[in-house]
């Protein structure tokens, strides 16, 4: 089985979560990891 393509998103405020969600919708096979240095994600949107 081929390895899944990996997408890394740096930052979990507004642009990051929007990007990750859209990428997953376009290609559900993507393996997505989002890194956020703070305690919360999706706080800026």
């Amino acid at each position, binding site marked *: 089985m081929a390895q899944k*393509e*990996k*997408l*890394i*998103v*740096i*930052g*979990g*405020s*507004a*642009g*990051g*979560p*929007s*990007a*990750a*969600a*859209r*990428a*997953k*919708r*376009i*290609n*559900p096979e*993507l*393996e*997505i*990891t*989002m*890194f*956020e*240095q*703070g*305690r*919360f*994600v*999706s*706080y*800026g*949107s």
Partner: protein
Amino acid sequence: MVRTPQQFKEKQDIEVKTEHRVTKIDPKAKKVEVVNLSKSQTEWVPYDKLIIATGARSRRLTIPGSNAKNIFTLKDLEDGLRIRNYVDEKEPKCVAILGAGYISLEMCEAFRLRGLETFVFYRRELPAGNLEREISERILKELQENDVHFLPSHELVAFQLNSNGEVSSLETTKGNYPVDTVLMALGFIPNVEIAKEAGVELGKTGAIRTDIAQRTNVTDIYTAGDCCEVFNLVSQDWVYTPLGDIANKQGRVAGENTAGGRAFLSGVVGSAAFKVFELEVAFTGLGILAAQRYGFDVDSQVIEAESKVGYMPGAKRILVKLIFDRRDGRLLGGQMIGKEGVARRINALAVALHQKMTIDEIARLDFAYAPPFSAPFDPILIAAEQAAKKIKMD
């Protein structure tokens, strides 16, 4: 907060790791260095595609005493909680807000609601100095009516601290002012350090250079949000406009393109709105100074009109300022202020800017009219009509 890490995992199968800081990007080996902040562990994680959405941080003054613990900035939820907890626990009496942009102006209301004596120190003469004078003057009046002390033309020199390491007063070029809380609301700096170190190019604004597909100059690295630039359709220039709605749009484009799709964000016109106590303030496009800087032959028109038919309850006076090019009548920007019907109304002008409409075309637009919502001649139509007359008279 819109979603939690668990929701990302369960609903969307997206792994979210909070308290994880990416400290390095290796674009040749295609991996990032990640520090798990709670465990102080570091690891390298491989990627095929990378999106840099590192955001921005609040600009801080570096003058003596500026690291005191009762000096706050406000950008995100954690900052907001920190300020609220401080006000709850310490019950401060008197706050100095440095800067007079929209964060400063919105926080005036928040601090006044909590009963704090509120001072706004600003290096310029009028609040919201990037907006047109007529707008700023009304903002000033609203501040004064709500007992906010606006102190213009001050440059900060130093903070004096007490024995607890807290600010007890601040010194400006004009005097010394005792305060027990400080909010620095001085704008934002894009977080570009790890990108720059990896060879990702920055634009002239200092934010990450990108294109309408949200690519960077480095293959397989994309960017979105407050760390990167955005194209302004009016000035036809790449600018730095750190706002959440733009970040989300850019994020969608970056996400779609990294997943194999083809999306683009052609640009923004620079629309925003904020609230100062009872006042709505909204603007789109360029102000006079910016428009002149970009070489337009600038003229403007200011009018005041009712937000709806005058006999209807809730009708309020709105001030509208249109900025346009006198050579071809093209709209370049619009700003509005008033107690009702401003923030939504600006969107009509945003559409006009996107479509490069002239004031003459705007004056003849067919807007919906009914007395509870508007007047037969909407304030925008009146402003455009007056502006168009001005050009014809020349």
